[in-house]
């Protein structure tokens, strides 16, 4: 066998396989990516403790090639981080990539998409959330009145119970009708 460096124990790999949509090889690939972000901080062999406590800071995480150009990168880091501030541990990172994997079912992707778009964390997508989303998507190139017009149109389309904002049920209903959601809400590892 020799001096093969083992990144995870069998038990850890089994756990991760059961808790994510990844295969073993993919989990090791994710670890490699994680380590590339900050090689001096992330150890080559991850113990259980390391996987939970070693955190990569948010600004370094946002430099990940897959996230770098994403307008929602800071919000994604916030949603998946266990400390709420955007610093991801390995398990958070694995979780994030597992949800964004193509094998993840629609329901769980919709759940997390809702959380990502919900900037003020009030469990509703209100006009301010929508405006923030628009701003990030178009890099603030739209005029303010156009932005309000579009937000109103969105709420018009989706709001069923007429409260002026989107609840999770309405969002889910809309996303079921969106043909491209599954293919765009996806990061390949």
């Amino acid at each position, binding site marked *: 066998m020799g001096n093969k460096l083992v990144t995870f124990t069998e038990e850890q790999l089994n756990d991760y396989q059961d808790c994510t949509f990844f295969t073993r090889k993919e989990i090791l690939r994710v670890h490699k990516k994680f380590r590339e972000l900050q090689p001096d901080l992330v150890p080559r062999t991850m113990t259980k403790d390391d996987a939970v406590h070693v955190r990569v800071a948010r600004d370094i995480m946002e430099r990940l090639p897959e996230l770098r150009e994403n307008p929602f990168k800071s919000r994604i880091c916030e949603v998946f981080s266990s400390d709420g501030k955007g610093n991801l541990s390995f398990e958070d990172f694995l979780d994030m990539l597992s949800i964004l994997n193509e094998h993840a079912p629609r329901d769980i992707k919709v759940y997390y998409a809702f959380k990502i778009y919900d900037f003020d964390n009030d469990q509703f997508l209100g006009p301010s959330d929508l405006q923030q989303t628009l701003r990030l998507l178009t890099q603030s190139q739209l005029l303010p009145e156009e932005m309000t017009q579009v937000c109103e149109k*969105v709420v018009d389309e989706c709001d069923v119970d007429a409260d002026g904002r989107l609840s999770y049920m309405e969002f889910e209903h809309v996303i079921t009708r969106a043909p491209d959601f599954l293919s765009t809400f996806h990061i390949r590892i």
Partner: protein
Amino acid sequence: MSGGERKVKRHPRGQGWEEAGGEFYQESYPGGEAELEAMHQNPSNIATLLPSKQNRTATYSKMYDAKTTMRRRTANRTANRAQYQTTARRPSASAATAAATDVASMLPDLSENLSNEERTWEEIMQIKALPVSMAQKKEHKAKLQSQTKLRLQGLEQLKWQRRKMWQRLRRSWSEAYAKMELWRHSMKEVEGDFGTGVVAYFLFIKWLMFLNLGVCTLMVLFIVLPAVFLKPAQQFPECNLSNNFTGQGSVECCSAQYANTTSEPAENIFMQFIQGRGIVEHTQAFYGVYPNVELTLNSAAWLSYDMPLAYISLSLVFMLVSLAAIVKSAAKGFKERLVEGEGQFYQYCNIIFSGWDFCIKNEKSACIKHKAIFNEIKASIESERIEEERLTRSKEERFKLFSVRVLVNLAVFVLLIAALYLIYVVFDFSAQTQTDYIIANNTLLRLLFEFLPSLCVVGLNLVIPIILGMLVRLERYSPVLIVRITLMRTVLLRLSSLGVVLLSFYRQFNCDDPCRPEGADAKCKKPLCWETYVGQQFFKLMLVDFLSHIAVTFIVNFPRGQLAKYSHNSVVAYLGEQQFDLPKHVLDVVYIQTLCWLGSFFAPVLPLMASIIFFFMFYIKKFACLVNSKPSTIPYRASRSNSLFMAVLLLSFVVMIIPLGYTIAERTPSKSCGPFRGLPSVWSVIVRTFVSSPAWIKHVVFFFTTAGFAVPAFITLILCLYYFYAVSAANKHMVLVLKNQLVLEGRDKQFLLHRLSQIIKQQQEHHKAMRAAAQSAHMNSTDISSST
């Protein structure tokens, strides 16, 4: 207050609320006295106490309770896997989203409700879809594993073990497949630059390549290997020119005549190879050499292999497998489109929530994507204005536009007819000059004339779409419609050019077999083995097409792209800039596949050739995509792309099967070559096999054709069709009804909340007034007591 700013029609149903009295049922809401106090402090916070606000706890804990009761009921019998999965499919993410709040409290009470091993195992499998953090998932798994479970007995145990094993097998299979996943890195590159719509195209090429490889393996196994290794069971009678049966014009002599034809010695092996003539013609690559009798291994009479039957069955299997693969792929997309097509299309929500492609890694592509989304939003806002404008177009303008469109369609039609006529003439010409001796002596000239038809077809396929693209701009359609119309016209061009090729073959071969007792007819240009000839033509077509792609990508478009990138002249940049035109590239690939389908009956080497071509096509197209083009400003949606590919492929398949079916059913195979020599038609092999099959098979088949079976079966089918149609219509209506109900419920909710907050305000004021009165009374009494 949430509903306050919007102008909502107040529903007059509220009038009956007071009269209802105490008869309305009370739901237990997760609020207690504490929350009532909070409500009194600030009435506008009522909305925060609603069950739907508690995310999913109250609503779905009911569903979860239903699940646990179901579990209790079914704990004693074998789990109905499908039932569990269908109920658990949605609520599993959502019933277990209740676990988002408190995992421990949502777990079943272990003392009362022991679940068995299988259920626990299923739940562990479902942990992945829980929307909780990783730490909680691991906790949950640990709890599930350590809880006491009932062991399954006997048959259930076996069934569950089988399921586990199947699951493990699937997992290890997917791991193994992922290890040898082809082109993963390339696709990631393309995805990072162009998004998922274009990656779908490369996945399509990969899928086609594997389809062809699979068919090729089948062919090698069942046709080529037996033809090489097995020997005929009985000896042929020899060609005896004096005999009537085996003399001139018989199958035996014709076969001998064909086998003796060799190509001119001047041709070297390379020439022979690229034309499929000479030595190559007499290999298993082409139709000609296959024997038409039964084969055995070492003359063991009991093990006989019917070559003609194998050949025709394999071609049929090839077609069926292709059709099944296409339909399966298309059905997935079709199901989704049908669900989304129902009801409204949420235009703005679609742009905003699924507009950004999370795969994009390139800064420039991200920039372009931002601009594309911006343009789309702008266009949507403008579209209302444009619609208005379109409706108010003056009569004059409309008439002018209409006449322009008619003219353009006419021009396109004329262009197509001219192109097709040209192809037909060239094919005829090339066939004639084959016997011209002047040409025959000069190898280069002869090569040119050999390949002239293929060059003509390929050249037209390159030039005409450009002209079509220019013409369609005159018609002033919307961008989506432009793409579709150009695609339709190009498909028409390609399929009809193939049709003309086949037609010219038909005209050429519409005479008797040249190997006749009377000798060959001078006017008949039919070669000894016309099937191999057809196979060779398709071989050449595919080769020339492939080479033209290489030439165009590397010799024409690469300098164009580089010029556009590095020159500062705007005219040059305009000419040189290319966008990755997805429909055109899809057509390229589908065309090659159509050629393969058409020709594989005549030349079994074509599927292998197609796989190799697709392998290299991947890299050629990748080069065209990454180096020559820049991301297009039209966002290509992956979902729409996939259905586009499959639709075009299916169309080509259907159009292709007609001439092939006709050839198999009606045309006489040539007497000198192939596994069907001497038979009246290829299909007669099947008929012959059927006739010689055991009696019970014949009885069964005849039964299916009797009136006693056919008529009731037909009527039952019609009834089933009508039933499903009625059910789907009823479902559509139901959706509308439920949606309206939902809207009304929402309005009711708003109304009730508003009323409730008003009442609480009233109460507050009442209390305040009471307190003020009490205080003033108290003050008065103290005044009085102090004054006395």
